């Protein structure tokens, strides 16, 4: 019998146009591909073009070229005396906040992976800070933790402290706020990963002699780790762009002057090149941190979380 390959005609019957069409169809390019066109146009108009425009703008600083970047790293922005320091300020806020969120989310999500009584109510409560937005949370925290807030008034009434503890208007306030708004997000992501782990793995480990602690560290944690790195990366992106809480709960004139604030001030003072350069630096800093996270992720097990056939 003749093999099927040999039946393929050397010249396509419908001409080269039909051949290209055939190739396209065989590789999944059907007329339905046109449906992505609006999406591509939208992406181009509202993302790719502005990004390129912004990058272009960043090279039109005081003396053109990379002068805006030089000014950034030498703290020579006209309205931001410590722009380079802001990079560290931002990282010093975003990294601890992210790590705290994920470290809290992993065990709590693990505990709740089988569902607990009132899970929906609990999830709703946890969701509130996320839905209200960071401005609302910042206001609430000011009322709670501020010098004249409930906490300090209660502590003073109980004669536990003489003077109000300084929890707002500084690093602590912003960190608390970041953790509070970032936790629900991290928790919900981790809950999804945790409940995706085959429950029979836990039973199998238990019967083989693993205590609850050993089950967590030898079975569940390694399987949660890939999810935790994704959560870490996404939470970091959220925390890195912090702006409202740094302004409302911190002190954006000094200790919590974050990069988005620097970009904003420069922009507000019509130093568009400086603002753009700051934005580009923010993006690069984020990408570096994400690259480190994903490099680490490449070294761990990231396959199925099922113990066999379902």
């Amino acid at each position: 019998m003749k093999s099927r390959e040999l039946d393929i005609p050397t010249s396509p019957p419908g001409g080269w146009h039909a051949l290209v069409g055939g190739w396209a169809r065989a590789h999944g390019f059907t007329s339905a591909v046109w449906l992505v066109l609006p999406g591509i146009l939208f992406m181009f108009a509202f993302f790719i073009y502005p990004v390129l425009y912004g990058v272009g703008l960043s090279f039109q600083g005081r003396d053109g070229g990379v002068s805006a970047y030089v000014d950034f790293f030498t703290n020579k922005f006209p309205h931001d005396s410590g722009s380079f320091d802001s990079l560290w300020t931002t990282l010093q806020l975003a990294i601890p906040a992210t790590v705290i969120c994920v470290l809290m989310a992993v065990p709590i999500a693990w505990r709740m992976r089988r569902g607990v009584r009132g899970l929906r109510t609990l999830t709703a409560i946890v969701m509130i800070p996320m839905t209200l937005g960071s401005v609302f949370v910042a206001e609430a925290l000011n009322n709670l933790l501020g010098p004249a807030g409930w906490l300090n008034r209660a502590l003073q009434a109980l004669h536990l402290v003489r003077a109000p503890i300084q929890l707002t208007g500084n690093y602590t306030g912003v960190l608390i706020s970041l953790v509070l708004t970032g936790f629900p997000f991290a928790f919900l992501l981790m809950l999804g990963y945790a409940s995706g782990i085959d429950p029979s793995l836990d039973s199998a480990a238990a019967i083989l002699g693993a205590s609850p602690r050993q089950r967590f560290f030898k079975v569940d944690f390694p399987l949660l780790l890939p999810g935790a790195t994704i959560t870490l990366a996404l939470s970091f992106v959220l925390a890195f762009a912090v702006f409202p809480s740094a302004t409302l709960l911190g002190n954006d004139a000094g200790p919590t002057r974050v990069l988005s604030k620097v970009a904003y001030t420069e922009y507000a003072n019509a130093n568009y090149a400086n603002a753009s350069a700051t934005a580009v630096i923010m993006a690069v800093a984020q990408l570096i941190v994400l690259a480190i996270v994903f490099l680490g992720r490449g070294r761990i097990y990231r396959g199925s979380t099922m113990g066999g056939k379902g």
Partner: protein
Amino acid sequence: MSDRRARFSELRLDHLSRRFGDFVALDDLSLSIAGGEFVALLGPSGCGKSTTLNLVAGLLDPSDGMIWLDDQRLDIVPPEKRDFGMVFQNYALFPHLNVADNVGFGLSLRRVGKAERKERVQRALDMVRLGDQASKRPGQLSGGQQQRVSIARAIVTEPRLVLMDEPLSNLDAKLRIDMRTEVRLLHQELGLTTVYVTHDQAEAMSLADRLVVMRDGVVQQEGLPQEVYENPANIYVAAFVGYRNAIDGVVLADGRVDIGDAAIAADHRNSRLAGAPQAVVMIRPEDVVIDESPRPGGNSIPLVVRVSEYQGRTFAVEGTTAHGVTVYGYSEHPFRPGDHAIASVAASSVRLYGEEAPNGAARAMAAEANLAASGRLT
């Protein structure tokens, strides 16, 4: 009598019950398992067999009752302290560990030294014929291989008791029969006390020293496989172990049962009428010979053939009596639908179960068991 290799002499389930809300999954189960014994819990899904296994494993707590291993009270001991092995229906292999680390998991928790651990893992893997797959991940193995890894993992620690929860039900038919033999061989070789849960009566009978047939959380019958097979305690067990023909009838003065088209006689020892006015006649299709003329010396039931299927060597024939009762049997030669035929059954193959009244419930129960038994392949 317990196997001298066993590490205990008796596992005793003492009036064990488990409820989930209002649902009674297991009702007052008492059972004694001797060391070295292979016991199969048999029943359709929802009969309480898996609940029983999980209670023994410690994955569930009993609502009532106690579990004793000789003089140790077990139901208050957490699963990790019971020193058991378990094989799961879905294998439950740790996907992030390779085959050797999966099998060695229990050994490393028991702080067995590296060299000894390696040797024991290799021995266990050789035993399940996977000696050359040690460095693969579970995801790279076929279903049958995965289940063999899971068996190796359960036996490598030489546990006091091995629990198997429908270990073969995810495998295809041929592999299932091969693995059945392997499980039996492993048991003979190692003498590990085993509790095996299944809904497959053929699997249970071929593997177990003793069968426990369950339904709706209650034990229906307990005994040697031959005993259960030859002498089912009730209609339900009969239907579940393959007595597919279930026919209602009226008990006559001479102990025979009138099913309308014929009076069916049974050997006295197979008759559980207990003076009841009504009875259900239960017969295995394998014991029903369908032919043009009756076989001498047996019961004969006239039929009209409905279906005749060639099954290799014999034909499975399904016919209907004048009273509309369906009879299943086998024939040496084919029939056409509508043909008249006679179903012949020896008196020794008939089981009679007394009923107070023509009992729709009994028939429904038998049908349910039939369904459960035939659905076991799905």
